[in-house]
């Protein structure tokens, strides 16, 4: 199906997404949002193929991968192919997820499938079964408030600092640490469900 994409198309996609990411890393929030949205379509397709037996969890894992991409974005270097970078993160999160469910052996063959990430796409979002909003509520205040004010309500860092009484740098650190803590909470919460 999607594998009939020509190599040219894939490399055009790579170039396009990389340009968006690089603009995003330079501080262009719109380009970064466009990058994440376009990436989500590919990662969803990538995961859906590999989680054929558990379609209801594709969206959860997709959200986990997007959060991981965001938390690891400072490790992307422009000379590296974007596909390799994103695919390694998606694969890492997939393996981690499968290990949590001890499904690794059962799905080993799908993991060996090394086809190109950008050849996969799926634009239809499913309902996520895990609510990240609820997990966000479990973060300590110095992380939760900066995320809520800056990222959900769209206030500036300085405004948030005034409201919360934190320093501007504490607000930034709170966002950064909070999103990493959120990724840990996701892994922890799945673990509990598994028991």
């Amino acid at each position, binding site marked *: 199906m999607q594998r009939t994409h020509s190599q040219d198309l894939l490399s055009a996609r790579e170039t396009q997404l990389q340009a968006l990411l690089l603009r995003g*890393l330079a501080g262009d929030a719109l380009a*970064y949002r466009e990058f994440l949205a376009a990436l989500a379509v590919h990662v969803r397709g990538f995961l859906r193929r590999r989680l054929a037996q558990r379609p209801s969890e594709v*969206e959860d894992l997709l959200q986990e991968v997007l959060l991981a991409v*965001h938390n690891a974005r400072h490790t992307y270097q422009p000379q590296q192919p974007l596909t390799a970078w994103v695919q*390694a993160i998606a694969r890492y999160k997939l393996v981690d997820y499968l290990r949590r469910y001890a499904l690794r052996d059962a799905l080993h063959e799908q993991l060996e499938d090394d086809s190109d990430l950008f050849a996969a796409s799926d634009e239809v979002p499913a309902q996520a079964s895990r*609510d990240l*909003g609820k997990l966000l509520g479990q973060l300590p205040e110095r992380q939760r408030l900066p995320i809520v004010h800056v990222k959900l309500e769209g206030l500036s860092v300085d405004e948030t600092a005034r409201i919360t009484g934190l320093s501007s740098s504490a607000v930034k650190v709170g966002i950064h640490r909070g999103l990493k803590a959120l990724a840990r909470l996701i892994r922890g919460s799945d673990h509990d469900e598994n028991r």
Partner: protein
Amino acid sequence: MKTDELIALLASGEGPVDRHVLARRLGQALLVGLLGAVLLTAALYGVRSDLAEVARTPLYWAKLALPGSLALLALWLTHRLARPGVRGGAVWGLLGVPLLLVWLGAAISLYGAPLEVRTELIFGRTWRTCALNISLLSTPVFVAVFWALRGLAPTRLRQAGAAGGLLAGATATLAYCLHCPEMQVPFWGVWYLLGMLLPTVLGAVLGPRLLRW
């Protein structure tokens, strides 16, 4: 939360990302750790009294070259494995070069020595403690490098842990050279390597546990 909402959340309110954060974080960790190892060496074992004299001999620099080259390669490996989608690849193989050189040097030195001093060349006077001392001295860099890696994004955790452990072992050996009186190549080829191997193995064992993200 819908995926679109998550994307909006992630993208909003983000400033530019510092491009050098990877190098800076590893650099800081290495610097702090190395300083710790040097201070530990001075405090626990003391600096050898003839350091100024031996530092003028080529043999002393050959001795430093072994852990020095391994430290550089381990730093390169750690820098690679801290990023998703970058393999250690051929750099793992390059580690063989200093190993082969030191073993070649050891073989030549043993071959040229009379039978009765060969044991002395291998065991020196400090073989019982050498590897353990190096392992102990590797603690500061080990902790610091694992801290740095936890802020980065390794996806091959065992390899990243091993590279970090080797970096810790090799820099600890460099610091230990301020103290260690042994000047025989065969000694380095056994006990220094063993001292570096211990933290490397520890890193490989702890990597999957400590570096998950």
